[in-house]
């Protein structure tokens, strides 16, 4: 015990913390762990336990209700043979790659432009970023209206005299997936801009000045000097955007409903439809596990490089 300190200091502690001395060792030493215990328990049960549980379900023949009649990896085999799953996976590739790339290009471009001592920079930033505060459902509802061929953008441009103007992607099974890209880019690219801008503001001016003294042109400075410094920002942005893409569910529901047909299905909507409305719990669980696999495939290299760069200073 540490009762070696004089006992009379109680009333005049520097912070006015005053009062009683707490018996150390016993309760106090365990309090931090006690405080953390519920969260750890929650995490073990609701995150890890549920992941395991879903995995177990994916090995069963569960349909409307969970049953524990094991069929090995049969559901995964069914999934691989399911045409709709392949449409959903292919869609995710198209959507994910375009969404991430376009967001990065627009985000970096706007950030560089905004970094040129712009008047009203704050106002512009606010405008670029506000869609990120909206629900994907709201975004989907708005863009569904804008993309409506009879009353939306197509009708407006046609009324300006461009009679042959066509922009009916939302009802075209081959093009509908790109409407998801448009709406998602609208929502998230401002956020990428904010990430890049924060990165740009963190770069040491002297590097740029030195490059300028060497006579490098501005675009060249950005491309050769500034962008390499922003590698970590690009990395985090890709990570976040890919994550948003894999989890995309609400946007599809609100904008296209997965249609026309199932032309814009993504794994997230596939999983929901099979697990909750089509009474295919086993198959739905298998698709959820593959989604988890997809997230881990992105996450693990990211965490690995993060930890490595920290160790190497």
């Amino acid at each position, binding site marked *: 015990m540490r009762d070696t300190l004089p006992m009379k200091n109680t009333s005049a502690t520097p*912070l006015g913390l005053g009062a009683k001395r707490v018996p150390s060792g016993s309760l106090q030493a365990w309090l931090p762990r006690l405080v953390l215990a519920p969260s750890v328990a929650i995490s073990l049960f609701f995150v890890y336990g549920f992941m395991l549980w879903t995995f177990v379900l994916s090995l069963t023949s569960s349909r409307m209700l969970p049953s524990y009649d094991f069929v090995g990896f049969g559901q995964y085999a069914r999934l691989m043979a399911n045409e709709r799953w392949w449409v959903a996976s292919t869609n995710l590739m198209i959507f994910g790659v375009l969404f991430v790339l376009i967001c990065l290009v627009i985000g970096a471009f706007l950030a560089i432009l905004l970094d040129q001592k712009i008047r009203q920079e704050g106002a512009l930033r606010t405008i670029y*970023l506000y869609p990120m505060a909206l629900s994907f459902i709201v975004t989907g509802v708005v863009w*569904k*209206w804008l993309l409506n061929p009879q009353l939306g953008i197509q009708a407006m441009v046609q009324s300006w005299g461009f009679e042959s103007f066509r922009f009916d992607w939302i009802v075209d099974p081959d093009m509908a997936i790109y409407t998801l890209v448009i709406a998602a880019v609208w929502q998230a690219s401002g956020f990428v801009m904010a990430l890049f801008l924060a990165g740009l503001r963190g770069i040491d001016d002297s590097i740029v000045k030195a490059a300028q003294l060497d006579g490098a042109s501005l675009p060249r400075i950005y491309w050769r000097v500034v962008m390499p410094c922003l590698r970590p920002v690009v990395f985090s942005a890709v990570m*976040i955007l890919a994550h948003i893409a894999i989890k995309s569910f609400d946007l599809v529901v609100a904008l296209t409903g997965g249609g026309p047909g199932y032309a814009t299905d993504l794994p997230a909507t596939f999983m929901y439809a099979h697990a909750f409305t089509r009474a295919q719990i086993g198959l739905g669980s298998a698709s959820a596990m593959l989604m988890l696999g997809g*997230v881990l495939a992105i996450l693990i290299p990211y965490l690995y490089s993060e930890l490595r760069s920290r160790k190497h200073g």
Partner: protein
Amino acid sequence: MANVIRRQTPAARLGRGLLYGVLILAALFYILPLVVMLMTSVKPLSEISAGTLLSLPQNPTLEPWAKAWGEACTGMRCDGIGGYFWNSFAIVIPAVLISTTIGALNGYALTKWRFKGSELVFALMLFGCFIPFQVVLLPMAQTLGWLGISSSRAGLILVHVVFGIAFTTLFFRNFYVGIPNELVSAAKLDGAGFFRIFWRILLPVSAPIIVVSVIWQFTQIWNDFLFGVAFSAHNTQPVTVALNNLVNTSTGVREYNVDMAAAMIAALPTLVVYVLAGKYFVRGLTAGSVKG
């Protein structure tokens, strides 16, 4: 690094003009959908079919808003999204308060009372930020049933707290790491206990991170759709689910103005938060999704 390009040659001036042109075009791309949504929401139906997206409302009316709030059909029922709007608040407020409180205590315990394995505990919890929620939906549905709170607001609050504390713990942990340990050590020597130190030393300086955490959780939970649609019944739906039902209810004439008014109503709370506290919103976004 911007003072670099202040040269007043005509070419430079043209460049500046072009720069502003591009920035303003981009601003239009982001702002126009909101403008169209707002204008459409105050037009009568006849004006919508006669005009185009950008034609200004001739006889602005708040009727679509009233209808969206109190009469529009969301699936079977036709009593607007007003009730669901309050549902969302009834879910969001407790969930935000509880998850932020737990996150603050966790962050404090993880940084100022480190123990063997505390880093592991943090890593363990952090993983919850990254999982696709599809992987927990089915077990969650069954667990809520066992607890007797399926399709209830209490159930949704539980779900949002459970999957929110990973984020709130991350926020507070990263914030408290930056608070010097000297004060805490001195207070410990003086015999102050766990909660007393938290209350007297950490909490008074936590205002910024509390704001970040509250805003982040508020927007996340308000905007949630997946949990809302999976774990609610007719009378406990959050507003995002009601909005989606309203837009997809196919009875009679499509009332686009009512759809847009409903979308505005569902969007307003988070927009207001964003306008009032944008700085903290951005901080939460970056901290929440980047740092580990």
